[in-house]
């Protein structure tokens, strides 16, 4: 069973292969391996198998290039345009025809304001103590905005 120093050395071997071992740690690893035959052998075996895999990749695919005519056949498979991200604001704006976005935003803001007034706004009492005329006016404005929105929707389609 490897002791603590051996376990630490085996861990360092991998960091060495990652290329991240500091010179001081490398010196400690090598100095331990010089005294411990098991670790020296383990390091040699690990390095050899790592080399074998590296050579394998270099020999089998290292210099391969795309076949002739690659772009031509790829080009046939590409759609006319890339897909858009439906959640990105700039892409969303692109999907809505020009001249519709600004009026639509104004209409939405007005609707929100009216809804807010209806729900939480002040009540203007009339002579008979009712706020009915104010609400009637708001209802008329709301109806005309809904009409405007319907027109915009038709334009969009």
């Amino acid at each position, binding site marked *: 069973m490897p002791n603590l120093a051996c376990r630490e050395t085996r861990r360092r071997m*991998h960091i060495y292969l990652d290329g991240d071992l500091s010179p001081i740690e490398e010196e400690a690893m090598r100095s331990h391996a010089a005294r411990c035959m098991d670790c020296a052998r383990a390091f040699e075996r690990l390095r050899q198998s790592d080399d074998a895999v590296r050579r394998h990749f270099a020999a089998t695919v290292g210099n391969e290039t795309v076949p002739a005519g690659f772009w031509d056949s790829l080009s046939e498979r590409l759609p006319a345009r890339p897909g858009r991200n439906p959640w990105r604001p700039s892409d969303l704006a692109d999907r809505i025809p020009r001249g519709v976005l600004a009026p639509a935003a104004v209409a939405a803001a007005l609707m929100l304001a009216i809804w807010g007034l209806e729900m939480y706004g002040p009540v203007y009492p009339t002579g008979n103590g009712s706020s009915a005329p104010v609400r009637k006016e708001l209802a008329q404005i709301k109806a005309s905005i809904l009409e405007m929105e319907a027109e915009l929707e038709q334009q969009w389609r």
Partner: protein
Amino acid sequence: MPQERDLIQQCLSGNRDAFRRLIEPHQDFVFRVALSVLGSREEAEEAAQDAFVRTFRGLGSFSGQVPFQAWLYRIAVRTALNARRRRRRRRLERLTPPSWFGGLASAATEAPDAVFAKRDARIRLRSIIDRLPGKLHEVVVLTYLQELTCSEVAEILNVPEGTVKSRLYRAREKLQKEIERQGLLD
């Protein structure tokens, strides 16, 4: 890269030539990734094309938070591994050897036994790498094929660097064990 951003913008307007210029510096690497995972040139070409089609389709979702190259390589390696998975599912493992099978430069000067031994070792090593689980396989391909550092691989795969290191550790252990078991070391 500003030029890359310009090309992406042009691609989004449907400019295919811009897409060609965008992928040109990376197309060989994408093909090599596919070839190293799939082993046959025909399948690798198809997988590389699939990866580029997915890249083109997804350009609208590319946020630019990672370099384009990292994003493309992630698509490439995942597309190749998915193709391998599909092939396994269909049980259509090719009976013919991969295209690089006969490509030994020294074949003419070496004794037939030595040539055969080399080819055999190459096929067995490929099969050992091929049997790695997907997450270990993708780390091995990126690390050994392109000599990328752990932090570069981490950026490509969008995982912490420590995750790449631990996957690489596990992959090396598995590879070494199997390579030794099959007596493939010189």
